[in-house]
């Protein structure tokens, strides 16, 4: 088995990270003793507000092709440093050509949304299997509805229409959220909302999507694709469309299910969230730490990958899909196949 490299998450404000030989020295004024982590084991840094990274370490990471992402406490992406652009112009040209072709763009967009809807259905059906009574009925009905939406994709004539179907399916899926929460009275799920998320579940989802986005964007850059030229989401300045595209198929199983598990198993409690004056919710420092630990743990879990015919750890799925996409763009694969579980 290949050893997965680790992501270092630093969220304690006041911490500073220094380069010490080939290690990262972690320093916090309240903690004594030397804390060293080997750089060779880390392929990505995720740094939250109030943490200092020395320029030595930033430059060393850039040299080695290791990226650093800066996020707000809520998981919103702020900045990312990577080294020089890698020399892969042919792939980037191919990507732009496909993005300009209405037909090819549509084909990829349909595949991505189909993957998402399929995986959302799996979340509903898997939970339905373990429940009974009206919850099971409601979940199965929602899954049925999603299957219909899946049929709509066949008639979509443009990437914009595909995005419309995605929106409708997402609304149906989030409407079924209350039935996915066993403690639904306590957590009150009411569809998806953001900026700010107005309940703990949405707050948790926003945070995990932030983590997912970091992972997906990193994978795209590693493969040499431009994260800002997408096929499903329109191209707009400052919007990483391709990262948003590729995230879709991962959201239900890698993020939503983890959020539901954390709440259903009471691994997070009300105390892990704090209400903000603007009606939004935010994770507390302790809550964020629990979520990051669980996220990192869940990334080790292996998932079946049908096209590859073997199991792939969650942490590598974005990279695998980014490679498959790159192969399709280059013309080595006839179609892009999203990651779908059965």
């Amino acid at each position, binding site marked *: *088995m*290949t*050893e997965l490299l*680790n*992501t*270092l*998450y*630093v*969220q*304690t404000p006041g*911490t500073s990270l220094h380069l010490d*030989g*080939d*290690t990262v020295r*972690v320093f916090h004024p309240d903690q004594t003793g030397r*804390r*060293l*982590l*080997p*750089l*060779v*084991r*880390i392929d990505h840094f995720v740094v939250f507000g109030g943490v200092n990274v020395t320029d030595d370490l930033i430059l060393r990471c850039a040299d080695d092709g290791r990226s650093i992402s800066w996020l707000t406490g809520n998981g919103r992406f702020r900045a990312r440093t990577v080294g020089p652009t890698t020399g892969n112009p042919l792939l980037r040209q191919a990507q732009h050509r496909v993005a300009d072709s209405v037909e090819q763009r549509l084909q990829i967009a349909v595949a991505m949304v189909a993957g998402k809807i399929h995986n959302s259905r799996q979340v509903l059906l898997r939970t339905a299997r373990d429940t009974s009574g009206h919850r099971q009925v409601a979940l199965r009905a929602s899954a049925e509805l999603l299957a219909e939406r899946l049929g709509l994709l066949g008639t979509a004539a443009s990437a914009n229409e595909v995005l419309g179907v995605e929106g409708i399916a997402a609304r149906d899926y989030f409407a079924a959220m209350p039935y996915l929460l066993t403690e639904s009275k306590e957590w009150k799920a009411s569809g998806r909302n953001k900026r700010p998320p107005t309940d703990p579940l949405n707050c948790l989802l926003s945070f995990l999507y932030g983590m997912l986005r970091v992972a997906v964007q990193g994978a795209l850059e590693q493969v040499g694709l431009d994260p800002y030229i997408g096929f499903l989401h329109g191209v707009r300045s400052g919007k990483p469309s391709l990262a948003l595209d590729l995230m879709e198929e991962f959201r239900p199983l890698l993020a939503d299910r983890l959020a539901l598990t954390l709440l259903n198993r009471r691994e997070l409690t009300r105390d892990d969230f704090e209400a903000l004056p603007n009606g939004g919710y935010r994770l507390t420092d302790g809550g964020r*730490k629990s979520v*990051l*630990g669980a*996220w*990192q*743990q869940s990334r080790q879990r292996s998932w079946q990958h049908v096209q590859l015919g073997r199991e792939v750890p969650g942490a590598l799925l974005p990279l695998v899909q980014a490679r498959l996409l790159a192969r399709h763009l280059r013309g080595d694969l006839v179609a892009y196949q999203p990651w779908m579980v059965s």
Partner: protein
Amino acid sequence: MDLLVTYDVETVTPQGQRRLRAVAKICEAYGHRVQKSVFEIVCRDPDKVRLVAELQAVIDPVRDSVRIYRLPASALDDVEHLGKPRAVDPRGPFVI
């Protein structure tokens, strides 16, 4: 793969002390110090080759001794430990 690295570096001379620091620095770059001269390392095959080469380059083959044990898969996840707790889990999440 999981490795356990232990070393004895003769430190009677200033050169020896320098070698000791060099060996420790190399090991720190690959794994976690669990006792004064014992490191637990989780790494990929090329990393091990590099580690061995780096150690080879700094030790004095007459006076020093480094032992690298290759452990069965995931052996480091199942360690019985008495006394002062170990600081980090070599495969666990790095969350600070």
